[in-house]
């Protein structure tokens, strides 16, 4: 698996898109910090970008890489290598290089700006951690989609749809159900609904840092327990991990049964 990871990683590191992605974040980091000169504002803007853009890039990149490396995959399949290793290796290659682009692209400007001396360091590292998680999750989901769909166009469509659903539509439905059922106690429901969408989950994780003042304004005991203590942080991180592991597990399972 590590050999495949190595080759996928090298392959991606040398591809134009990784550079574009990396440079985009680098530029973004510099613009946000050095034009604005305001770490708090930069962190908020970054949050918006991370919870929307990172899943999108992860999804599209994942699907693209999967379909584009079909030949590579077939070449490997005839070699004495375990199937799951091939896909895991490729997955980790993509997710790893994307995460690296993100962490380095944003990390470098922030370090140069002096984030280590700022008290925003925790917010910032949390951002990077959730960003990395989202990359892992959405790349895994996109690999799942592409391994289940021979048709490239279809796979691509599903992947974009998945992103759109998670990023926008889900929250719309969520909001509507909250408003429709507002007569009922909804705090448990709303927390559970958050858990079922990795984007919402990451957002919640960041809210815990950025907007704790507002979150504590709500009366529900479950909310208080969740947001007021470390429960929220641990539960969210745990669920994010689950969100990462489950698609990977399904990927290896499907990869064992698939014909090429």
């Amino acid at each position: 698996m590590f050999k495949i990871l190595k080759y996928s990683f090298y392959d991606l590191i040398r591809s134009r898109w990784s550079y574009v992605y990396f440079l985009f974040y680098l530029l973004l980091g510099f613009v946000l910090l050095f034009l604005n000169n305001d770490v708090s504002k930069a962190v908020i803007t970054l949050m918006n970008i991370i919870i929307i853009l990172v899943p999108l890039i992860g999804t599209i990149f994942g699907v693209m890489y999967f379909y584009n490396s079909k030949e590579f995959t077939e070449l490997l399949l005839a070699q004495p290598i375990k199937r799951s290793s091939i896909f895991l290796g490729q997955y980790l290659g993509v997710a790893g290089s994307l995460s690296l682009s993100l962490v380095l692209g944003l990390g470098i400007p922030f370090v140069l700006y002096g984030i280590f001396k700022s008290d925003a360091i925790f917010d910032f590292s949390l951002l990077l951690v959730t960003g990395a998680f989202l990359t892992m999750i959405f790349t895994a989901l996109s690999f799942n989609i592409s391994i289940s769909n021979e048709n490239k166009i279809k796979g691509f469509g599903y992947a974009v749809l998945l992103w759109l659903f998670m990023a926008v539509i889900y929250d719309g439905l969520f909001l509507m159900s909250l408003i429709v059922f507002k007569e009922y106690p909804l705090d448990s429901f709303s927390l559970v609904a958050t858990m079922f969408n990795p984007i919402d989950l990451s957002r919640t994780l960041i809210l815990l840092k950025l907007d704790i003042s507002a979150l504590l304004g709500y009366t529900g005991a479950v909310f208080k327990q969740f947001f007021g203590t470390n429960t929220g942080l641990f539960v969210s991180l745990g669920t994010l991990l689950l969100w990462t592991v489950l698609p990977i597990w399904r990927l290896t399972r499907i990869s064992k049964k698939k014909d090429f």
Partner: protein
Amino acid sequence: MIKIENLHKKFGKNVVLSGLDLEIKNGGIFAILGPNGSGKTTLIKSILGMVVPNSGQIYLNGATIKNGWKYRKQIDYLPQIANFPGNLKVKELIRMIKDLRQMPSNEEELITQFKLEPFLDKKLSTLSGGTKQKVNIVLSFMFESPLLILDEPTTGLDPAALINLKKLIMQEKEKGKTILITSHIMQFVAEIADEIVYLLEGKIYFKGSIEELMTKTQQTDLEHAIAAIATTPTHV
């Protein structure tokens, strides 16, 4: 060497292999023939484990290949379509495959033989179809595995390369290897094959030497014999 029992494979509703039985002994060149869609590639891919059969068993040297992957160390495979990761250079691809297989190899000899030296530092995406096929050949012939599976090895080759390929195949045979070949070029098959395996409707329709085939179909050349075989009522 290879024993296949009652192999079934469907792709959706499309039945490709239906109860295929086949035994291939050690050593010699076996040509797997059959009309388009008869299941040649599916059979080969089943042996390689790239296609997972619905039912049936495949044994390689007496051991089942199901869920295994280490047995592929005994197989060298030349895929039908030579598509490679375009970002890699030829040299890197060869190095990578060597790295993955961790076996002794003789790629230099093959590279000279197919005059690939000028392309070693080129990216695979820039190569022509024929050159890619040469690289493909180098990759599949550079190891010394007892079983060699060649899926349409002649595609895109110029005459000189074709002669080289034939020479190579014969050399490997001399070493006592078992070689499975699919091809549409009957002349090529006639020249090198020891035995013909003819696939039709997902089953083995005929298996035997070229001579046997000719006597059975009462034809004088392979091409006609193959064309006639489907209409011959008797089969093995």
